[in-house]
């Protein structure tokens, strides 16, 4: 038996080697965090002020008197459970939890003009359905149940429920109306994205948008489950919502910063408010029920495919027809918002029939090879020439420029850079973007806008984010599994500055 000292030596001297590229990436993250903390107001001066007070007996007495008066004021005028946390702290607090369970109800969306208004009305009780989320914050696994649409049979109204389960590799979508189940397989890249996005989208799962939390005002207090909660309310509208407005009422524990309940009302034009949703059960760090993320087809559902035959989707592929006949398709892929507000979007323009010249290798290849970073976008039959954030208007125009391209199979993917005229100090993604397209065909001068797919954008805050998500997406949509070499974080940041200065 070897002596204990040799075991100690073995453990002490065990060596670990690190990847130099990742070393740089992590170091950059650390330095960025350091620079950000330095930018915040220094708290170092505070103790010295205290020392000054404590030096003299007179200032000591004065300080003591001030403290006593302040305490008395607190007791008599201000509730001692004064909020330590407000609603804007909620997203940050949520990130510190391991599991989240949200349960309540929501009205199915009623498409106005689609149903007989005497039979189906928005907000009517029969359209309500279970809304439930289980989220494992550390792995991104998630199960959501939400009303999708309204079913009308013999003038009887009921909600169709949509269930989505992500088990870490497969997504199972259950359509309650059609009683079907469908599987999708996530590549390692998509698993990484899902882990990140499901963590961040938890605020949206609570029917709130992180960007709108500043608009909330504290209106009172109530006790829920024995806990004093502050009530925060807001009434919001958006250009894309037309004349629809939504009223939000939320209950936040000032002690923990945790959201306890959410209620929503909606109105269109001058109609009365109707109840839209209520999340009355929000639980944190609860044990996950057995098999809550199991992706087994439940009885009564017909599987449209199996895990073995499941599609491995191209990153966030969202196909949109360009012309009325749908002969040509403009497809958006992954979308990223950089710290300055610039947007990187992957897209392609193809035809519905492979024999068409637009998918001929030589034709597209020649076109893409002529492009230069920072120059114009490819003159494909249709192009996404600009983007605009949905929900919040920063009041600037985004200018589309070519960044890079990748090729997978016979499809060329443009990675376009959309640079806002000025640097934005607020994050305008999250709620998604409108992607404005126009046709470059002589026979068709159509233009319009499509919305980025449900998955939305990914916020790129650090070099690591860029490395993992942007380059990862490019690699996914490339035959050789690699992102173009010259696309680096530094190059893109430099290019953005160059483009913006050229706009002035």
């Amino acid at each position, binding site marked *: 038996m070897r002596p204990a000292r040799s075991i100690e030596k073995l453990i002490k001297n065990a060596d*670990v*080697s690190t990847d130099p590229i990742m070393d740089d990436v992590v170091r950059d993250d650390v330095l960025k965090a350091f620079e950000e903390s330095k930018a915040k107001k220094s708290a170092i001066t505070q103790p010295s002020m205290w020392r000054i007070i404590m030096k003299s007996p007179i200032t000591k007495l004065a300080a003591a008197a001030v403290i006593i008066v302040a305490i008395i004021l607190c007791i008599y005028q201000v509730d001692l459970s004064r909020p330590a946390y407000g609603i804007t702290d909620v997203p940050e607090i949520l990130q510190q939890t*391991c599991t989240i369970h949200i349960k309540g109800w929501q009205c199915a969306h009623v498409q106005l003009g689609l149903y007989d208004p005497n039979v189906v009305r928005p907000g009517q009780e029969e359209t309500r359905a279970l809304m439930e989320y289980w989220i*494992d914050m550390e792995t991104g696994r998630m199960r959501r149940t939400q009303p999708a649409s309204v079913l009308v049979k013999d003038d009887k109204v009921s909600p169709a429920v949509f269930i989505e389960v992500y088990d870490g590799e497969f997504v199972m979508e259950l359509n309650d109306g059609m009683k079907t189940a469908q599987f999708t397989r996530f590549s*390692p890249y998509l698993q990484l994205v899902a882990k990140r996005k499901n963590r961040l989208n938890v605020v949206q799962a609570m029917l709130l948008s992180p960007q709108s939390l500043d608009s909330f005002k504290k209106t009172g207090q109530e006790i829920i489950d024995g806990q004093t909660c502050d009530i925060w309310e807001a009434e919001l509208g958006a250009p894309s919502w037309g004349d629809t407005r939504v009223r939000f009422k939320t209950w936040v524990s000032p002690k923990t910063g945790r959201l306890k309940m959410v209620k929503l009302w909606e109105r269109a034009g001058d109609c009365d408010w109707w109840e839209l949703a209520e999340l009355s059960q929000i639980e944190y760090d609860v044990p996950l029920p057995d098999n809550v993320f199991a992706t087994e087809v439940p009885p009564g559902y017909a599987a449209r495919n199996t895990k073995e035959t499941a599609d491995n989707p191209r990153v966030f592929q969202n196909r949109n027809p360009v012309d009325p006949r749908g002969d040509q398709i403009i497809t958006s892929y992954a979308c990223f918002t950089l710290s300055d507000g610039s947007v990187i979007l992957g897209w392609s323009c193809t035809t519905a029939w492979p024999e068409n010249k637009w998918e001929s290798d030589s034709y597209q290849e020649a076109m893409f090879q002529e492009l230069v970073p920072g120059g114009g976008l490819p003159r494909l039959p249709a192009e996404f020439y600009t983007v605009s954030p949905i929900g919040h208007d920063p009041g600037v125009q985004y200018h589309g420029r070519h960044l890079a391209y990748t090729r997978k199979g016979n499809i060329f993917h443009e990675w376009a850079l959309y640079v806002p005229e000025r640097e934005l100090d607020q994050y305008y993604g999250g709620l998604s973007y409108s992607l404005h397209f126009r046709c470059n065909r002589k026979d068709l001068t159509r233009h319009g806008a499509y919305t980025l797919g449900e998955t939305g954008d990914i916020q790129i805050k650090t070099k690591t984010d860029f*490395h993992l998500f942007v380059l990862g997406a490019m690699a996914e949509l490339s035959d050789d599994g690699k992102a173009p070499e010259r696309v680096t974080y530094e190059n893109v940041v430099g290019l953005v500055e160059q483009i913006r200065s050229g706009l002035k």
Partner: protein
Amino acid sequence: MIEDKLLIWKFKRGSSDALCRIYEKYKGNLLRLASALLNDTAAAEDVVHDCFVSFARSSQQLKVNGNLKGYLAASVANRARNWNRARQRRATTSLNEAKPIISSLKRPEQWIIHNEELSQLNKALAQLSYEQREAITLHLQGGMKFRAIAELQGVSINTVQSRYRYGLEKLRSILDSEAKL
């Protein structure tokens, strides 16, 4: 030790160079410690990354009473413990999923370069109780004194020493039996 004091002094006054030096000096050590505590490379990378980022953010409030290495090691140990707690919670609620979810995820880039010797050692360490593993790795890899480990674990110094001794004994028999095989 003196170098560390100087580095902390500079770091608290906003020196990025000092922070870089601290990072370079201790990253390997902390990765080794985290991977021993967690036996999961991806989780260890995340824990050390978060530990450094949080350290960088804390420059103005930072109070290092003992040595810097021990301070960082304690920070990693605390995070690793939280991670393990979360992992246990998952394991107890979902018995069908025995493999750790994170480690099965192939990441585009890995920070720690695979090292057979290290993974063998970590496998052996993983067979100890978490408290024993923590006592051994914090003492030998984190350079922490038994007194500091006792404070961290909330037990007496004698308990830590026993955990260390019994843990080392068990590790010895595990490694020896592997060698015989």
